């Protein structure tokens, strides 16, 4: 028995194509804008985290689509594999790509995702129709989330700086887990037969806001000028998306009660 719902195609809401465009374009524009504008003023490094939020929301939507096929307890695993692919691809991309690093990282993550998707479907026999496509998306989202948050922390995506300011001090660990939880948690939190896309993605924005705040705290090491706008904008995004999530909860829940007894037998019929 699946506790995760009917086990079929995810329904309703914004089309997958739009979400992919939002994640890829938003992610890359954010990362490049942060990189180039930070040269003018470090305060602009927060834009990288906005790109990471786009990628996290896209990744959460891809997780939602693939996990709707009854992957109840597999949701956290898929989020972790997203960032596993993302870490390898982003370090590879930034190391060899130079100024094209984020794009190389995205392509490398997509290739790793495709291989993992093929292995899952063809070798392990999971037979989920959209597995290959979803793993490509999840890998790409993971890579962009990592590069975006790293760019905000370091103020650049140049490999040497990222290695010295993000990887060597161990902050890559918090990027890995905050980005991964941002991608896996929204669907895991809203799992159930009456899950709705807008409510799930509101959680993705909210978790993206938390990742942004943490990236802002880390960027204090580089520059306080970069840290303050990042933390404040992250907190603002967190508040707005949490308020939206609570509003959608009240819209979708059977009842939101201050307190009360359990529903009666008659009520359950």
């Amino acid at each position, binding site marked *: 028995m699946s506790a995760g719902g009917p086990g079929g195609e995810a329904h309703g809401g914004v089309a997958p194509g739009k979400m992919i465009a939002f994640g890829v374009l938003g992610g890359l524009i954010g990362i490049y804008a942060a990189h180039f504008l930070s040269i003018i003023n470090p305060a602009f490094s927060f834009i990288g985290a906005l790109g990471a939020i786009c990628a996290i929301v896209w990744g959460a939507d891809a997780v939602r689509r693939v996990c709707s096929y009854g992957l109840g*307890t597999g949701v956290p695993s898929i989020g972790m594999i997203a960032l596993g692919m993302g870490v390898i691809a982003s370090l590879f991309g930034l190391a060899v790509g130079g100024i094209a690093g984020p794009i190389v990282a995205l392509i490398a993550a997509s290739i790793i995702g495709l291989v993992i998707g093929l292995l899952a479907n063809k070798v392990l026999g999971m037979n989920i129709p959209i597995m290959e496509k979803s793993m490509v998306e999840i890998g790409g989202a993971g890579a962009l989330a990592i590069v975006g948050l790293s760019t905000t922390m370091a103020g650049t995506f140049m490999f040497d700086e990222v290695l010295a300011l993000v990887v060597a001090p161990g902050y890559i660990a918090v990027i890995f887990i905050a980005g991964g939880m941002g991608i896996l*948690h929204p669907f895991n939190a809203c799992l*159930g037969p009456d899950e709705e896309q807008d*409510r799930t993605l509101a959680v993705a924005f909210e978790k993206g806001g938390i990742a942004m705040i943490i990236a802002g705290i880390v960027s204090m090491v580089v520059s306080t000028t970069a840290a303050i706008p990042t933390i404040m904008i992250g907190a603002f995004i967190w508040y707005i998306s949490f308020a939206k999530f609570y509003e959608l909860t009240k819209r979708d*829940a059977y009842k939101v009660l201050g307190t009360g007894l359990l529903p009666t037998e008659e009520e359950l019929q």
Partner: protein
Amino acid sequence: MEPLIGMGVLALMGAAATVAGASEDLESDVGSQSNPNSQVQLAPQMMYPHRIYNKAISGEPPSNALMCAVGGTVATVLMSAYNMSPVFAIAMGALIAALVHGTYSVTAFFGRPTSQKRFKQPVYLDILWSHTPVIMGYSYITTFCILVISYLMVAVLGHPFPLPLLAFIWGIAIGAVGSSTGDVHYGAEREFQSVEFGAGLNAANSGNIVRKGESGLRNGFDNSWFCAKFGGPVTGIAFGMVVFLSGWVTTVFDPARGDAIGWLSVVAGAFLVFIMILWNRKIEVAARAAYGPYKEDEVAA
């Protein structure tokens, strides 16, 4: 380093780990997380609505890794950028981690029951307001203790990994230990207190968790009260042993003193694992003897 100082530090780490293990397990019991939560999730579907917190953040290892990595990151930033004292930095790191963990708990609490609208599971706000601070309190204790362990490893034992990475790894480890050790006590003994001891979970009982408490309707506090008697402490001992024994072999047989001694530490580790396999087997056999045999599976004719 003097071996005696090494052993002292190790003892302190073991003590912190024991506290962390107990608080980690009780934190997962108050909110109901990990494996036992699948029954809390299933209950409304089987017509058993309840007033138990549904904290489906993720499995315990990722959620603990998150709070420990966040705590380790904030502590490192405060120590490196602002030269703050380690005690203050660790306390602040644990505070931010507890706040982040609290938001994750709240989104899971709202999200899961709301997605069960068709099974008529209400969202009870008094459960949210009463349980979330307790969850955050436990997560603070867990993160604080894990950061103490990680800091001692870096600052005193000279571990080459940076603090956030060590905290992340210990976060995964404590989540894994809490999930494998403490969950049984909550999931099997508390949620299914109404069935015979050792009966296992019959498919017909799926979702039929105990929903009425010693007084009123059962909630997460009742569960943590019960688990604090055995499940929490035993998780603490398990994690304390993991930290203490895994450090003990390399403190006594320090690989820095030569390759041969390094290999001795590997042998000592393997020996400890072997002893514990035997010990576990004896406990299981003794428990079966004391509490009656499992019912034989009925073989289909």
